[in-house]
């Protein structure tokens, strides 16, 4: 079984190990054809399959059995077969179904991005920009919950939750004891401890990083700033915790470290989970060895003022007249 299998996603063929999911095969290709994932998390076993945003069309099952799959499938939980052909952004059916999922995810969402700490780095926000409608067709009262503090460092804002279960998997797999879970059923489901218990654990802060929306936020950063006004810098320290290697991203405003998070990869997943001491208690530059500015995708709102050198559109790059006309703008973007 060591042989690689061939899968074609939106016309691009890639060879991957057997058992790889369609989503991970797409991630190996990269770019726009990677389906969005709100609940799947490669570092959390058993995650995925729930949010349905990563659905794709399998137009050819495999070389052996070329029949298409009858329904759209969750790419995060469907393994590739040799010769499989998958359509993601080339299938209008997929895009329509996905925008349906996004619409449905938003009907009970408070849409409170202006006061949400997650805004600017929120998967749901990004997704609704890409696929959502301009207005809502849902005209009923939205589901609401009380905000609760689960411990003194983490706030649960259940209204925003999309029930991806990632934080439950983190508690099960990364921490040594789970005290929160999914209660109730259907659209009454909620993340809760049921009784007022603090989530106290050396690694509990990781639930904040894996939360795709603003349901679990860092109270030490609450309302301190908008993320796009802060400057992320990669740093490390010698952490004494056996399971934490102290590699983090520091989010600066001026000279102050406003928050500390794990480092995230291009798909928004943390590279390595960090301990609570690093996250909550080490907020002085002196605690850290600074490495370099964090690479932020230039499509992210976070990068809008910082770091990445301006990449002029090709049309400007090759045209001196246009460069001259855009001189002021070009100078502004070269400031950092």
């Amino acid at each position, binding site marked *: 079984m060591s042989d690689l299998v061939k899968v074609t996603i939106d016309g691009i063929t890639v060879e991957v190990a057997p058992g790889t999911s369609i989503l991970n095969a797409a991630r190996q290709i990269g770019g726009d054809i990677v389906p969005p994932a709100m609940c799947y998390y490669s570092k959390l076993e058993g995650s995925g399959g729930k949010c349905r945003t990563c659905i794709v069309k399998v137009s050819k099952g495999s070389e052996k059995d070329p029949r298409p799959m009858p329904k759209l499938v969750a790419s995060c939980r469907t393994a590739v077969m040799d010769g499989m052909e998958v359509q993601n952004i080339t299938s209008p059916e997929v895009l329509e179904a996905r925008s349906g999922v996004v619409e449905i995810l938003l009907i009970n969402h408070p849409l409170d991005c202006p006061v949400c700490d997650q805004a600017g780095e929120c998967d749901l926000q990004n997704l609704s920009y890409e696929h959502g409608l301009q207005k809502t067709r849902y005209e009923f009262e939205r589901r609401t919950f009380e905000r609760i503090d689960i411990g003194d460092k983490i706030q649960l804002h259940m209204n925003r939750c999309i029930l991806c279960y990632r934080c439950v998997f983190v508690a099960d797999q990364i921490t040594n004891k789970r005290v929160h879970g999914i*209660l109730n059923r259907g659209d009454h489901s909620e993340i809760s401890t*049921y009784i007022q218990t603090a989530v106290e654990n050396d690694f509990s802060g990781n639930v904040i990083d894996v939360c795709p929306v603003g349901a679990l936020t860092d109270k030490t950063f609450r309302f301190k700033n908008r993320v796009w006004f802060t400057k992320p810098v990669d740093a490390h320290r010698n952490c004494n915790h056996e399971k934490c290697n102290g590699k983090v991203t520091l989010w600066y405003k001026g000279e102050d470290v406003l928050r500390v998070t794990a480092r995230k990869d291009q798909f928004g997943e943390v590279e390595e989970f960090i301990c609570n001491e690093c996250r909550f208690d080490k907020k002085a530059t002196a605690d850290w060895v600074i490495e370099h500015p964090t690479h932020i995708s230039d499509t992210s709102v976070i990068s809008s003022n910082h770091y990445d050198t301006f990449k002029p559109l090709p049309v400007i790059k090759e045209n001196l007249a246009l460069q001259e006309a855009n001189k002021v703008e070009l100078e502004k973007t070269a400031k950092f």
Partner: protein
Amino acid sequence: MLKVEEQQPVEFSSTLLSEADEIIKRYPKGKHKSALLPILHLVQAELGWTSVPAMDKVAEILNIEPIEVYEVASFYSMYFLQPKGKYVLEVCRTGPCCLVGAEKIMNHIEAKLGVKEGEVTKDGLFSWRGVECLAACGYGPVLQIGPEYTFYENLTPQSVDTLIDDLRKK
């Protein structure tokens, strides 16, 4: 709503504990969590509802985290997370029963008991609620009363009156 801190500590009877032991033996080694649903039924039959202290105790018996019990108890509709009347009249409110008058029966029960769905009568005897299909569609309207879930079929306002009066006298 009874708050968690107001909930009294509980002791399970020795019968319950030995029945629970018997149930746990059914499952392969290490799979004793399977006993959770049956044991919760025993607890509710004994205490009338599943309080937090009771669920914590169940977690102890099964050697699992309390949250695992809360998750399960809150998922299934048969476990009461709040105290109820001694008799809970659960009336089927799904399509086929409604075709033969379940809504009328529910209105009648509400008027007869003088309490709204989910509430408890002052004497602590009765609660009622609409539940989804009880798989007795051909004998509708139907209602059931725990903890043995005795069935009452082909209900009429008169038969409901008799039933409630009989239960009052018990």
